[in-house]
Each structure stands twice: as C-alpha cells, then as structure tokens.
C-alpha cells in the first residue's frame, strides 16, 4: 500500500541544514497495524507528517498504492490525502467552539458529501462509537478518553483506508488508552490500515509490527 524510498527531510537553521530523516525506506501492506517507536527527537512525528502528506518539503520516493506521491502537485496530494487518510492527534485537537456532532462533521465538510449523506454518516458514527447521547456537548466538557474517542471517530468518519495516529494515548490514563487501542484493533479488523507512533510497549503490543527509528533511520523491525 505504502512504499517509501530514500526519504530525506531536513530543517534549515539559518545556513545550516539539520537532517531529521536520512533516507528512510519502508513498506506497509494494506490491512497492517504498525507501530513506530523510537527515542524523542528521532523523527517519528516528522515521518508521520510525510506519510500523511501534510509536509511537502521532503525528497525521495513515496508510492501510495501505485500513485507516485512525490510527483504529485500539492493540490493533488491534498486530494489523495483527503480520500485516503485520517488523523488522530496526541492532544485530540478537537475544535472547542463546535459540539461533538459538529466536530465529526468537519472532515466531511471538506469532502464531496451531500447534506443527507453527511447527516447519515455522522449518525452512524455516533452510534458506532456510542457517542449519540453526547452529540450536543462541547468537547471541553468531556473526559480525555472520550475526547480522544471523538478524535478517532473523526479520523475515520470519511472512511479512510489509512489512519495515522501520533501518540494517540499520550495524554490518557491506561484504562482510557486501552479503550482507544481496542477501538484501533476493531477498525483494523474491519480493514483499515493503521500506523501509530507511541512510546508505550503496552500500546505497541496491540499492533502486529513495530518499526524502530533512530536518528532518522529505520534501525530494525520486530514482528
């Protein structure tokens, strides 16, 4: 599904170039549940942003199925992302001024969905995540676990093939973390490919493959 070849990413500090990723090669099959691990500053988030097609300033080859993402124009990359990828963030990044229901609707509003279709998807998703009774509440009134649950719901409401999650449980208690991980497993069973970044061995245990990153390089894999 994803093929990365010799991905390099550098940040410029004045005249100096600081390489964060130095030629990453990585293959991920459809239906996998992958954990990326590594020490702080290793470049995990950077890699995830590249995978998520947020970042445009890298070099190398990136095939998404058979599309060469590295050759796409920014606009087409955005299209590719919107069609295929959902995100879950460490600090949830729910929009405070919007209700739960409205938060779920945000990704749909940026894709081509009709009004009726949108409403139905929101209704189904609320149902599926058992959030229907919370739909009119504002996120700040909810527990962190619930907020992240909404984050996950929002990530997959537009039916992406791939979900990217950067330390999705970093701000949660272990019980809440467990819930999120179980949700990931369930989604993965239903066919969604999942790539998460985490420092937690326990969380990593839910996945079937672990990619270790050190100093901008993939240094090994555990299966």
């Amino acid at each position: 599904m994803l093929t990365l070849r010799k991905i390099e990413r550098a940040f410029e500090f004045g005249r100096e170039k600081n390489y964060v990723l130095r030629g990453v090669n990585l293959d991920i099959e459809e239906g996998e549940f992958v954990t990326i691990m590594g020490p702080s500053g290793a470049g995990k988030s950077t890699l995830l942003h590249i995978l998520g097609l947020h970042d445009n300033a890298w070099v190398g080859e990136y095939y998404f199925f058979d599309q060469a993402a590295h050759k796409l124009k920014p606009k087409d990359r955005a299209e590719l992302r919107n069609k295929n990828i959902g995100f879950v963030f460490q600090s949830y990044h729910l929009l405070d001024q919007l209700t739960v229901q409205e938060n779920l609707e945000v990704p749909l509003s940026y894709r081509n969905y009709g009004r009726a279709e949108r409403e139905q998807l929101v209704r189904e998703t609320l149902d599926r995540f058992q959030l229907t009774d919370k739909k009119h509440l504002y996120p700040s009134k909810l527990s962190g676990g619930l907020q992240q649950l909404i984050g996950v719901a929002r990530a997959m409401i537009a039916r992406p093939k791939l979900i990217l999650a950067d330390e999705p449980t970093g701000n949660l208690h272990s019980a809440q973390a467990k819930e999120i991980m179980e949700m990931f497993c369930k989604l993965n069973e239903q066919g969604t490919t999942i790539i998460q970044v985490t420092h937690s061995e326990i969380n990593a245990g839910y996945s079937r493959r672990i990619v270790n990153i050190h100093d901008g390089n993939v240094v090994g894999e555990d299966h």
Partner: protein
Amino acid sequence: MQTLWQDLRYALRVLKARPGFTLAAVLSLSLGIGACTAIFSIVDGVLLRSLPYPQAEKIVQLNEVNEKGIQIRVTEPNYLDVRARHNSLAAIAQFAGGAVVVTGGNEPVRARAFWVSGDYFKVLGVQPMLGRGFLPEESKQGGNPVALVSYGFWQRVLGGTTDFSGRRLNVDGPAFTVVGVMPQGFSYPQDADIWVPREVEPPQTSRTAHNWSVIARIRDGVTLQQAQTDISTLGKQLRQEYSKGTDAVDLALVPLKEFLTSKVRSGLLLLLAAVGLLLLVACANVANLTLAQATMRSSEFAVRAALGASRWRMARQFISENLLLTVLAGVLGILFSFWGTDLLLTLNQGNLPRVQEIAVNWRALLFTLGLAATIAVVLGLVPVTRFANLDLQTNLKEAGRGQTAGGFSQRLRGVLVVAQVALTMVLLVSAGLLGRSFLKLMQTDPGFHSESAVAMTLSLPTTIDKDQEQRYRQFHQQLVEQLKQMPGVIAAGGINALPLTGRGSNGRFQKDGNPATTGEGEYRLASGGYFAAMGIPILRGRIFDERDTGNAPDACVISQSLAKAYWPNEDPIGRTIQFGNMDGDKDLLHIVGIVGDVRDGGLDAKPSATVYAHSLQRPQWWQVSNQSYVIRAQMDAATLIPSLRQSVQAANSDALIRFQTLNEVVTDSLDSRRFSLIIFGAFAVVALLLAAAGVYGVMSYSVTQRTHEIGVRMALGAQKNAVLRLVIGQGMTLTFVGIAIGLVTSIGVTRLLKNLLYDVSTYDPVTMIGVALVLTSISLAACWIPALRATKVDPMTALRNE
C-alpha cells in the same frame, strides 16, 4: 503622585515600543477629534455664542407677516408707524443697501454700503472706535452727507489714516464725508463697509414696497414675549387702518440671532451629528486596537498580577497609556481643527452667517479637552473589562501557551466592528443621498443653456440724474452692440440680475391696470438680446426690438408660468401690467411676448413667474450696480474674457468687471449643497477607511488566534478555498450584521436630511444598495489579507505544540 508619574513614564515607553499601534491609534483619534473640534467651532460661532453686542439677547429683527404667514421685509411707512407707536422698545432702526462702487478712496472699489436710520448703532449698542457717530442734524433730510466706515474698509481703502476729515466717498448719491471708524470686528449686516444716514434721502410712501430690514432693542424690564405682543397688536392695527393697502396682516419680532441663523441651523446640527458618528467610528477603532494590545499583553499582566499588582493598579496602567494617547491625539487634533476650520470656511464662502465670529477658541479647546478626557477614560476601561472576566490563573496558563481563547474580548471586538460598519453605513447613506440629489440637480434644466456663454457683471460708480440716465442708456446700448460685433459672438444682451444669484427683486403688480387684480412675480430689466444669449426660448409673440424705443409704449415679456398663473385661459399678449412697486415708474407695461421659464430661485426651486421689462425704457438706477451682460460664443466663451475686459475698460475706465461663465453661475448656485456634500462625503470616506482598518484589525487578530484551529482544519482536509471561506465568512458576517443595523438606522435617521435632498427619497433603494455594495467590497478587501495569511498556516507547525 509618585506612582502616577511612574505609570506615565512606563506608558510612554510602552507606546514607544509599539510605534505601529501608537501611530494608528493617534491618527484615528486625532482625525476624529480634529473634525469634531472644527465643526464644533463653527456650530459654536454661528449657533451657540451670543451675538457680539452688549445685551445681544435684547436685539430683535422686526418683520411684516403677509397673508400666507410668511415673514417679509418692512415698508418704510409701516416702519415709521411702529417707531411712533410702540411701547416696548428702547430703540428701533431700519437699514437697506448692498454692493456699490465707491470712488474717493485710492481707486474705485466694490463695497457694501448701507443706508441706516438714526438709532441703528444704538440698537446694536456699538460706538465708533475713531471719530464720531451721526449727529441728529445729519440724520434728517437735507442734512450734511456723512459716512461711517468699517475697520476693514478703513485699513484697506483709507490706508488706516487717523486723519480722514478730508476723505469723501462717492456712494450712490452725494459725496459723503467720513466722520468715524467702527471698531474692529464690527460689521453688521455681514460684510458691511460703509454706513450712511438714511434720512438724507426723501422718505418712501408705498406700503407694499418691502425695502427695509428693521432691527430693534427691547426696553429693559420688558420680556421678548411682551414686546412681541405689543408689536403684533400694532401690526393688526395697521392692517385695520390700511386693509389691502398693506401686505402685512401682522408684525413679528424674532431674536436677531435666531433670525440670522435659522436657515443654517438644521444643516449645522446635522454636520455636528455626522462628525459625532465619525468620532465614534474612530473611537471604536482605537478601542479595538487597545483590546488587541491588552490580549497580546496578557502574559505581561499575568506576571504583574502574580507579583501582586491589584486589578485597579493594572487598570490604571491602561488608563495612563490611553491618557497619553488621547493627549497626543488631542494636540494633533487641535492642529487639524485649525486647518479644518479654515478649509470649511473656504469651502463655504458666503453661505454661513457670522463667519467673522468663527474661530477655534478656548471654548472649542475646552470642548476638545472634555472630549479627549472622556475618550481616555472609556478606552482605558475597555481592556479592564477583560481582566474582570478572566481569572488570572487562566491568563497565566494561556499566556504560557502563547495564545488565548479571549472569547469575551474577541466578541467585544466583533461588536465594535459591527458598530463601526453600521455607523459608517449611516454616513455613507447620507453622503450618497446628498450626492444623488446633487447629480439630479446638475441634470435639472435651469431654463437656459449654460454651455458656451459667459456673464460679465459691471458695477459703475455714479449718482443718477436726468442727464446721467441718458448717458447710461447710451452706454448700455452701445456696449451691447459692441459685444454683438465681436468675432465669435453669437448673441449678447443685458439683465439687471442673473438667474440663480438671488439678486433680483420681486413683488406685487397690478394686472390689466386694475388695482383689484394683482399678481406676484420677479421683476427684471433685460435687453432684447438677452433671451438669445441665454438660450431662453421665445414661446409666443416677440421679444424687445427696435420698435421699443424710449418714446414707444413700454413693452414687457413674461415667463410661461406667469402667463399660466394670471391669464390661464386667455392670450396675455396685448394685456398690461403695472409694476411701479419695483422701480417707481407707474407706466403700464404692454405684454408683447412669452418666453420659457427659468429656475431663478435655484435649481431646486420651482420656475419663477417673471416679468421682463425693457432696460432702455425703464428707470436706470437699477442698472448702476451689478448690471450683467450675457455673451454667447461659438467656442469656449471663457476665451472671450480678455477682449471683453478690454472693450469695457475702453468705454468706462471706472467700471468694476466680474466674469463668470454661465456654467459657473449654475455651479455656484449649488455651493451650499456642495458644501454639505463634501463634508458628508469626506466624513463618510474617512469612516469607511477607519471601518476597513477595524475589520482588518479584527480579522488579522482572529487569524492569529485561530492558527491552531485552522491548522487542525487543514489537517482534516480543508484546502485553500475552504480556509479563505472560513476567514472571509467570519469577517463578512460581522460586516453584514453591521450593514443590516446600519440600514435600519439609516432609514430612521435620513429623514433628518429631508430638507437637503432633491428628488431623492430618504430611503432611496439605489443609494442603499450601492452603499451596501461599497461597504461589502471594502470589507471583503480588508478580510482578504488576513484570509490569505490563514491559507499559509502550516498544519505541521500549528499542531507541533504537543
């Protein structure tokens, strides 16, 4: 005291450290304050301050009231009767006069001379500064002709010499000996230069010739109301005694200040209201800037609070900063106001009474000071509301995160922008309505063709006697013939008062020689060529020609509306008019033709019913001052001016000449409208700029605050257009709410403008829609830059703070 000083010093440093904010705030405020002070100075000088005479509230204008209830000037016999019979006045005086050419100074000059009766200066309570006033024996028929002159005239024409005993002025009559100079600043009526005793000339006897203005001083111990009752009783008596022999059914006393300013009162108050709106818009701008500052400085204040500063102590910091701001703005504003007042007065030449009393003085400065202080306190309190609503804990936390929710102040800023847009809308609608009226007036047919024609107005120095009268006839006739011969000239003719200049006379005439059937109309003396030169169409009959010599029966031409009004179903040609009221010549005027109507009284007035008599057949004293010639040319008429000047000067070197193209005559008549239009327009444009700055400020601040949200939305799939829509949508929502409120307010408020409008309804949809579109597009432009900036948000950076 110590802390206040410290506050101010710190405030100065803060303002210096934020030059952009300081500049924007000081500029906005000083514009508002300057405009307010300038308009206030004018309102104060014209409407508020009492007239510059002792016990000025006792001075009144006396008018006749005609059957229609309209106040008109007074006839001399009525004046003399009032003077003899009243029980309530300390003094009463009549005066009349106007522009004349005066010789006897260094060279012939145009001056405003007035015939005044003996008690004139007693009514006003003013004494000459140099020399003496009129002696009783000078204020009677056959008395020695003497004159008093204004300080300005004395300086300008008499060279400021204290020995003017030998100076004689030839002012339309005998040579007058100058006996005194009035104090500086005294000039009543407006711009008067010379006063001479009215009594040296024989009295007038007509009770329907309204030639005199009458002023009086109410006796001490008598109230205005008592005096009014006394005079009104007298007026009714006169009516009983003379019935239709007098036009007055009543007499009215009006406080002089009110009489002088009533015409401009509502207009000036509207300007004051408009400038008030402008100031509010400016204040909203600064409040907005201040709020943004307060939010940005949350961390500073959080730290201060953590170190133990009380809320009041922090409020004081803001108030001292604002005090400093408004003081700066006030100083700059006063400079603006000096300049603005001058500009306004230049723009408004001749349309305001009491102009010589207008100045930015201590009253205006006090007004500004009060204004600035109020603004400082209010603006200083605005950010305090912020601290009152957020506990400091959150402030510290938010400050630490480098961003604040600041929902309350953000909402307040939104409200301010809405208010700005609404107020601007009101100003724009007002300006738009005035502009549309102005355009409609420009398109109104004045009744003559104003293209390719120039008007030349001559003032001649002289006294009239039989011989002189004959010489005048010849001079006029020859001049007109000469003008017609000039290369490029198509037609030329003379008239004693040009249309739209407000100079002509009007009155009551007898129809068909029957004293019982009368009519009212304008009276003009014209030569035959006048109508062709003006392009006034001949509708029936003929105009003056060689048949109408001095010996032939007097001919006249009437305007269409006069024909319709007084001979509705008959042919007026061959009928007669007796208009002795106008020039003392009771010979019948025989109607020989009907010409098109001219809007003599103004483009916004109904066409005037006019009687044109032939200038070669009627008495000549009419033609001494301000006789005009209209010359129509094949090309641009202005190119004729040098050769015209030459030929007149060759014929009479003492003539004072003034040129205006007919287009200028038309546009000059719109001066006071143009004045209101320019002021409203300028205020509206400034308000628009301030409102645009307000929208821009709020939106760019909002984008900064929403960086994170925008980043999230982008991460969730929002593309460039969606982000643009998000920001612009927010800005435009504020704008549309403002426009809606402004629209409703405008509909309520523009009724006040009604008197200034012409052929435009106060809720003219074209103006409303046009203004809404202008506001929308300006606001759109103001949102555009922040919106573009929002699309440059990098979701990676925005989301990195985990």
